[in-house]
């Protein structure tokens, strides 16, 4: 049983709070995301909103290029697919790396609580739930 940390398990996540200073992080069971690929982007121009916010530098005006768009290959136009979408992706967390990033250490009790809760079955259910959203 961890004594340095408060651990609360949920359906697809574990909340971990360090008692001494309240530093806290909720960890999901798995990385799940949707790769949407990319499309060719056009120029982003300075707008009146930029002007009102005083964000247009000297020498520039509304309508000038703020962020240059992609260089378009022959036959391509803005909005065409630049990189094809891969769809749903998933990846396991490296818990040693995650705990070190968040808490600066790998507490054995915390790691055990996380890894024992995030079974393969739970992770599979989480992925299914994410894709259904």
């Amino acid at each position, binding site marked *: 049983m961890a004594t340095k940390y408060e651990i*609360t398990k*949920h*359906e*697809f*996540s574990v*909340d971990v*709070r*360090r008692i001494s*200073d*309240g*530093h*806290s*992080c*909720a*960890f*999901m069971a798995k990385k799940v*995301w*949707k*790769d*949407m*690929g*990319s*499309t060719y*982007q056009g120029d*982003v121009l300075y707008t009146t909103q*930029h002007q009102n916010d005083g*964000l247009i530098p000297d020498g520039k005006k509304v309508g000038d290029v*703020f*962020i240059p768009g992609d260089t378009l290959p022959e036959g391509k136009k803005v909005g065409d697919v630049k*990189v094809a979408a891969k769809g749903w992706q998933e990846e396991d967390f490296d818990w040693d790396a995650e705990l070190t*990033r*968040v808490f600066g250490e790998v507490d054995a009790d915390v790691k055990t609580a996380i890894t024992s809760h995030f079974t393969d079955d739970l992770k599979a259910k989480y992925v299914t*739930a994410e894709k259904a*959203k």
Partner: protein
Amino acid sequence: MSTYEGNRYNFSGANVTGIPTSAISSGTFADARLSSSSVTQHVDLSNLSASNLTSGTMPDARFPATLPAVSGANLTSMSVASSVGSWSPSINFHGWNFHQAKYVKVGRICHVSCYFQWTSSSGSGDDACQMTGLPFTSWNSGSPIGQGSFHGSYDQGQTMVMANSTTLDFMSDYNGQRVLNEHNSLGGLWTKGKMIQPSYLGTEYRYFYAECTYITAS
């Protein structure tokens, strides 16, 4: 001294019996003349006023298992469990420095805030940009379960927390992308293209502030 006078002063009263208590109509008995049993066995406490309880502590066993119903309006100065601390945000694209990330949790209401700075570009594509690492899991009871705002150079909008999640989503006002339809179809979140904007500006413009209040799972 006569015989009568002598007997009068030596009279002990020991032989005086059968006097009814009704004959005692004045004066006060000394405490020592009253036995403790005569008080504790015959006193009636059934009508004792609670105002007489002026010291001591009621034993737990004297309280009923089901306390009397009282109006919540009478419960004042109640303490609610609360905690404060920091958290560790992470954004899935580009490089960022998080200068401040704090939370306060009162009961099941959590308010998070963070102040962060873009440092470098990385990655490409139109994937939704999300901030992970919320301090507590959100309540699994429909989305959204929390809402707030963010502000930064050339971009601002709303933050949202969905159900059963540890992620903070961003819905940008930029180019009018502040509608739920876009959230559903495109992710409605910062794209990498929008997030890259600070890199075109001076360092003073590379800062963002975000806050959100949401209901936690426990």
